[in-house]
């Protein structure tokens, strides 16, 4: 069975793109072994304590907690970019492995299919 890597680079709000990326990941997990990688502003999707009550947008960050139930336990982000944003792994809503840049390159090559969101 092929392995899928979902790469997420969009900030959580401002468009529905990040939410639709997570939807695709959840669907993928029903069919195949899936990993998720968060890069750039995509890391902000994982930020704990988001409040969208005043923007009429769905707080889909609550859904990340369900990833483990869907069998997605390989969730990664860039350590460099996490540091750039002044964030720690403990600021994120789920457990995320912060990878060095060379390990991110290896992550891409270890998966059969890459889907960008």
């Amino acid at each position, binding site marked *: 069975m092929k392995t899928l890597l979902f790469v997420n680079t969009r900030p959580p709000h401002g468009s529905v793109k990040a939410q639709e990326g997570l*939807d695709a990941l959840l*669907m993928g997990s029903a069919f195949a072994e899936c990993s998720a990688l968060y890069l750039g502003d995509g890391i902000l999707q994982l930020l704990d304590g988001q409040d969208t009550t005043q923007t009429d947008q769905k707080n889909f960050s609550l859904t990340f907690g369900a990833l483990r139930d869907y069998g997605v336990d390989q969730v990664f982000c860039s350590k460099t970019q996490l540091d750039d944003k002044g964030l720690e792994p403990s600021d994120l809503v789920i457990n995320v492995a912060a990878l060095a840049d060379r390990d991110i390159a290896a992550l891409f090559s270890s998966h059969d299919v890459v*889907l960008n969101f």
Partner: protein
Amino acid sequence: MKFAIVVHGAPYSDQAPLSALSFARAVLAEGHEIYRVFFYQDGVHTGNRAITPPQDEVNIQRLWSELATDNHIELIVCIASALRRGVLDQTEADRYEKSCASLDPAFTISGLGQLIDAGLNADRLVTFGC
């Protein structure tokens, strides 16, 4: 080789549907197969048959529909993305009691599973638009 093509960008707002169309033509011209074209996110607008560009611009929806009809290519729009953007076939228009359907018949509404299936079964999956 079997190619799956994914389109994320909206027609006219974004180059993605036209770049994907050029790529699809090149794939066929080289003798390869297109497993499926999956329109996701703003890409679902590509199937909107109400698209009416000025006369000196191409009709991107029509170009895709013609390519698909001539070459028997499956064009899928994601149902969740399409419904929230008002792209509905007659079945969905009836179901949600909307006064009109907007999806061109060359396109089919289906689920995200078709995207995953394309990733698993095509030799290459190529995404247009971010």
